[in-house]
């Protein structure tokens, strides 16, 4: 466990990096510290933003003394420790994915000049550089193990997901050489060691593998999953990608349009230590709740 690094972010932010490299443990510490801070919530604290291996807070220094806040954050770091004994109440979600869909394929062809492999597709490139014999094998790996939502952001409601397998089995893919100016809404993307789902259409630098019919951001709050809030994902959500074919995609999309679609989900409790001891066994038990 590395020592955290603290920095002022101007006069209104404190930035804390818990580890330079990504790990589930660093993410778990970020979440445990920010959860504890939410409970203490000193006056003058405006935003608490957990991220992959770091977090930041925004505060009003006219109300909350910067040095007092800094001391409180350092205390919390000590209290939380390595966070392996923390159990996180969360949920397991199933996200249907049409891999190699026509829309992301059309988009990636338009931006081939910005890609490492102009003659291939994003998924053929990712499969090759990660040592998979075929795209199907790669898709089986991407959809075979669950993913841990380690951060929500970039744009409204976009989840970053960290693969819940030992590091030697993790998929790693560089971002585009130069970012695209377009990405279809609900693209399932990949950059570095993170998979993501683009919540809105727009610029992006992650590789594009497919698309989900499931809306994850609904500012009009017209779908049943969004009656409470317009953003679906929360840090800590555990995700299983389920490959679907075009027929099923169309069926699911019709149920979205009929305002009936719901993401399949079940509550679970996630604890880091037993997961790290036996990732495959722990994952199998986690996913049983969706069976």
């Amino acid at each position: 466990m590395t020592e955290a690094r603290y920095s002022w972010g101007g006069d209104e932010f404190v930035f804390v990096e818990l580890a330079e490299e990504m790990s589930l443990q660093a993410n778990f510490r970020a979440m445990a510290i920010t959860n504890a801070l939410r409970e203490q919530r000193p006056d003058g604290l405006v935003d608490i933003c957990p991220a992959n291996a770091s977090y930041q807070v925004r505060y009003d220094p006219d109300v909350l003394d910067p040095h007092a806040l800094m001391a409180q954050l350092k205390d919390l770091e000590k209290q939380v420790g390595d966070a392996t004994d923390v159990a996180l109440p969360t949920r397991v979600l199933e996200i249907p994915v049409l891999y190699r869909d026509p829309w992301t394929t059309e988009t990636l062809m338009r931006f081939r000049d910005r890609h490492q492999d102009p003659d291939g597709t994003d998924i053929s490139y990712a499969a090759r550089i990660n040592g998979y014999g075929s795209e199907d094998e790669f898709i089986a790996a991407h959809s075979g193990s669950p993913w841990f939502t380690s951060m929500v952001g970039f744009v409204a409601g976009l989840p970053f997901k960290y693969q819940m397998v030992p590091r030697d089995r993790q998929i790693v893919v560089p971002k585009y050489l130069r970012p695209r100016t377009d990405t279809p809404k609900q693209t399932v993307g990949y950059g570095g060691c993170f998979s993501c789902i683009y919540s809105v259409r727009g610029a992006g630098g992650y590789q594009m593998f497919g698309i989900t019919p499931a809306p994850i951001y609904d500012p009009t709050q017209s779908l049943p999953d969004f009656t409470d809030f317009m953003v679906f994902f929360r840090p800590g959500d555990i995700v299983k990608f389920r490959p679907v074919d075009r027929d099923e995609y169309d069926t699911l999309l019709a149920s979205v349009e009929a305002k009936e679609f719901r993401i399949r989900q079940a509550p679970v409790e996630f604890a880091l230590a037993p997961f790290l001891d036996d990732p495959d066994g722990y994952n199998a038990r986690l996913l049983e709740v969706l069976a």
Partner: protein
Amino acid sequence: MTIEVRKPGLSTTVQDAGRTGYYDLGIPPSGALDQYSLRAANLLVGNAEGDAVLECVYMGPELLFTEAAVVAVTGAAMVPKVNGEERPQWESFAVDAGDVLSFAYLTGGARAYVAVSGGVDVPVVLGSRSTYGLGALGGFSGRPLAEGDVLPVGSGTGTAGRSVPADLRTTYSKDVEVRVMMGLYDHRLSRDGRATFLDTTWKLTPVADRIGFRYSGATLETVDREPPFGAGQDPSNIVDAPYPIGSIQVPGSVEPIVLHRDAVSGGGYMMVATVLSGDLDVVAQSAPGTRTRFVEVDLDGALALRAERRARDERLREVLG
């Protein structure tokens, strides 16, 4: 009462003091990029200082008033006209039912603010009326104004002829200093890289919008390293981290980007400094081509500037309150 949009201008959005509490889910504060001009415009027309106004970038809209109202225009130098007749800026003036408000060309700054007595009365979303365009959230249908839009306005009791004293008006220059605190990932820069960042006169590129302002001028030298797992190969890559509002990221070690109030909330590029909250107004009023120096201050310096800004706000309230 309503306002009809006859011409939308280049990019006119409804903005107020902004929304807080949702940045952890990627929803940024939004709100007027120049918060001082927002406060001044509102106080001139008798509104609460954080009420919703129109933010007009580079080129103003043409607006038809369906009822009498009191209006004030602050921020960028962009002379307002009522039925073609010029009106002063930083002063409240009356419009009658049927009057058309339009604007002359921009001659300084970048963003003008139009306050109407009663405030622009679009629905409050997550605690604010501000437009967040990327998320199609808030404001008028979550987007910049378009021809034919009809904007609702609340009822107010403004007085024409009120004026911000000259020393409380912002003046604009094509050479600006923006105060920053170094930090975040500035250890990724070499000693030379850090010096280059602070010594270069940067030029604002045309990529300057509510999300971020991109500057050109130099390449920053980084220190060598073994990329940490999950960061990526480029020396400017980090494990995707949260971005403070005002933070300055340097993708590919060239062309620093100052994130503003519609910021992306996180990402994988090293940030090397953060613009002081008070100087975000200076960035907001920078037009492309503006020559910019980033000047380092420490926390005490930042808090002193904050106190100065607060004192200026207080004087504005005394004069107009």
